[in-house]
């Protein structure tokens, strides 16, 4: 990429904006699909693919309630989560590897922006001053703290073959040499990253998003006090995170369809490819979720330690098997 002298890098802007639009449309569908798959496998009918959209529309129109003693954070927190999720969607190379010169999609930067959203939700949970909010916030941050080493180490492992932690370069290298996707190093790193994504987005076995029992909640406990559009942003924000992270995993595993040059048909094809990848990933995740139970909170570190070992193996293996 060269030349942002004109001020605006049009191809990169196109890719970023189309990624945001595509993910805003696809993420609720992914949630709807996962719920439907689970429902069908459990012998229920389910709400259908469009139910998350209907939920968000309902919440946006509802009157939000603000309890006495809550601060500006109850209002700002959901907006920050949503903004951080949108930036993450714009940064990730899910449709094209064309990025801004001055704002490369460095994985460390992406992780920090994600964490900004994590912190915003955790503070929303504390703001109302209820027992459940604090409980969810505390658990959420404990898990986030323990996930961090796995994520960064997996990033490190992925960056070694390319010599850079910039995502679009990693994906571009995989497009050029598809066999590198199935090297042991890459598979180990992706497996570690997958466990980290499950923990970070609060899916089974770390957190049960469908639970109605407050004592076992993590994410749900933090948003108990939010209502109306605040809740809508919190829900949509976390769906976008799930969509973006699942999309990233799927793209790293199957980079085909991602464009390197911007063109309207290319982008359309890439969007189509992304929806296929997301459908497969979501169906798989939902199917697995039917068969596992939520583990105790204090067993989660063991799970994360396991994924950390995988990531560590990936890094050391890449030095031992790397040519020269």
């Amino acid at each position, binding site marked *: 990429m060269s030349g942002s002298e004109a001020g605006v890098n049009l191809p990169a802007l196109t890719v970023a904006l189309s990624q945001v639009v595509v993910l805003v449309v696809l993420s609720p569908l992914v949630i709807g699909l996962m719920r439907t798959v689970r429902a069908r496998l459990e012998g229920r009918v389910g709400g259908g693919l469009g139910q998350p959209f209907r939920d968000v529309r309902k919440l946006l129109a509802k009157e939000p309630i603000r*309890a006495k003693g809550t601060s500006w954070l109850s209002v700002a927190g959901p907006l920050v989560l949503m903004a951080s999720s949108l930036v993450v969607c714009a940064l990730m190379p899910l449709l094209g590897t064309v990025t801004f010169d001055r704002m490369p999609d460095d994985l*460390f930067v992406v992780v920090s922006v994600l964490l900004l959203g994590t912190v915003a939700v955790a503070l929303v949970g504390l*703001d*109302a001053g*209820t027992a459940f909010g604090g409980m969810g*916030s505390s658990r959420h941050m404990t898990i986030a703290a323990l996930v961090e080493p796995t994520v960064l180490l997996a990033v490190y492992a992925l960056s070694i073959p390319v010599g850079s932690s910039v995502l679009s370069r990693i994906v571009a290298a995989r497009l050029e040499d598809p066999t590198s996707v199935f090297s042991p190093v890459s598979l180990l790193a992706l497996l570690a990253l997958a466990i980290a994504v499950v923990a970070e987005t609060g899916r089974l076995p770390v957190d049960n998003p469908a639970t109605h029992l407050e004592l076992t909640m993590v994410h749900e406990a933090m948003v108990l006090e939010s209502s109306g559009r605040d809740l809508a942003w919190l829900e949509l924000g976390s769906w976008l995170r799930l969509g973006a992270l699942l999309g990233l995993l799927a793209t790293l595993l199957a980079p085909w369809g991602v464009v390197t040059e911007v063109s309207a048909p290319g982008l359309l094809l890439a969007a189509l490819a992304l929806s296929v990848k997301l459908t497969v990933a979501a169906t798989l995740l939902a199917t697995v979720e039917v068969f596992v139970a939520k583990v105790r909170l204090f067993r989660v570190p063991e799970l994360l330690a396991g994924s950390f070992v995988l990531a560590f193996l990936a890094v050391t293996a890449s030095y031992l098997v790397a040519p020269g």
Partner: protein
Amino acid sequence: MTGPVIGPVTGVELGILGQLGLVLVGVVVAVTVPPAVRSRASGSVSVLLGAAGAATGAAALAGREGVVELPTSLPLGHVALQATPLGGFFMLVAGGVGLVAALYGIGAGHGPSTSRTFCAAFPVFLGALQMVPAAGDAVSFLVAWEVMAVASTVLVLAEHAARAEVRSAASWYAAMTHLSFVLLLLGFAVLAGTGGGTDWASLSRVDPGSPSASVAFVLLAAGFATKAGVVPVHVWLPRAHPAAPSQVSAVMSAAMVKMGVYGVLLVTLRLLPGGPSWWGTALLGAGAVSAVYGILQASVATDLKRLLAYSTTENIGLMFLAAGTGLMLRAHQVTPAADAAIVACLLLVASHAAFKAALFLATGSVVHASGERDLDRMGGLGARLPVTGLAFGVGALGAAALPVTAGFVAEWALLQAVIHGARPEDRLVAVIMPIAVTVVALTAGLALLTFVKAYGIAFLARPRSDGAAAAVESSGSMQTAMISAAVAVVALGVAPGALTRAASSAAGVEPGSATLTGVDLSGVGASLEPLALLVAGALALAVVGAVSAAGRRQRRPVELSWGCGGVRADPRMQYTATSYAEPLARVFDDALRPERDVVITHAAESRYLVERVQFRQQVVDLMETRLYHPGLRLVDRAGTAGRRLQNGSIHRYLGYSFLALVAVLLVVTL
């Protein structure tokens, strides 16, 4: 006092002389001015002193030169003060922190912190702090170092009359800081003995590969680590910071401990460049242990100042880790990554100075307003202290290394340096680098939890004590000081280019950054522009905000939050700092070993009904109980045994004199 200066005086020389002059003025003002205006007058002089330090440091960084030689009556020769880019960087940091802290002190002045002693010691402390990086030879360095240590001990003791724990804290601090001084003295003596002189040029004649250089390195690194608060010689930090007045804690934590980092860089980059690889590995190891141990202790701490003190240990650990990575990679000829690591170390220094100053000053304001240091008794302060809350929030963002703050840029640079460091041919490096990434990542994750806890528990929700409920925002100068520190955190994060260039020239490496707002670590092929990220975030926020505001319904205020059907809102129902960190304390039970006391009182009618439950948890510093207490007990026992020598009998004393005389005669005749 100022000696004859030969030749025309350069700007830097004027700056150094000006700082010495301002110290004198500060002391005179503190002693002579009446108490009513003492705090204001003395504080203003200290503000000027800090500004002079920052300006001199900036000039030295820009490549200006100057040497000031002061004759002394010591048999050791003159004191030479000389500005170098590396020293200038640290002088700039110290001056900036000193300026903000002195400004804060003007408004915070009440009780013991307006006493004559305190007002005189503060400028002396600041002046000595700013002279340490200007020292041109080992003697001036040690003189400035000792003045800094003694003046800060006096300042830590400021509130000794009101709080008993202050005295014990000051004893620990004095003992540890003198341990550091003795180690440095020995280290420099070894170097001076081999090099044949005490100025830096003579010391740098020592061959870095020689055994005496390694002995000197171990002694000096241990001395500097003690001052910096590296585990296991960190024990004074969590005691001295809570004991000292907040502006003093801010200078000690944000600037003074950095002199330990300066010392390490001085020894390894300037005096003994090209030392063996194990020097770097040792620094890296010490840094990694400090970073993880410090942040673990911080995450379970409930005293806010103790929490910040442990977070200082963590950050110093990261700086040592960065410096160690740089040295180790240099020894293995991975120059670009090594340079990036050393620049990252200096970025960490500057960012930590900014956010820790903001955090300590805001904490001081909380203590001032509510009388509480215990997080478990705070809450709801954001509404009562909006400016303090803002400063603490921004500082906490920096400490958690989130975008777009200075801490984020520094940590990003460190990670980039580390992931580009390993080469397959060096097996040791190839294993150490992933461990370093893990340490940085775990530290970052725990720092996130720690500062969400600190901000969320203290500033959000409802007050947990009467003091917190009655808190009132502090005075104007305190607010200005806190906000300027917070502005520095964001400014260094949004426009880190200038800082990176300054850090590159201080470290003597190729400046990578081309623009004001971007960091470009060209050696490792990584660039970052936080401003672009900020713009993207602001755009996204604007879009979401616009959708949110577009003709939607008003918020309806309600009395009670839902709380899953709760019928009353009691502040005691909220999570506290202790409960917030409980899952983490359980996960790291083996490393922390918290002591828990649960007392259950049963109702008189039935054992199955509980009347009240008392829970008390205390996390002691394991290093202290396992490492120091046995040593202290041993010394104590030796002292008790030694008392038997002295039983008051005149016969025994006469016998001692006789034996001594015989011994002297024997020695003389032999």
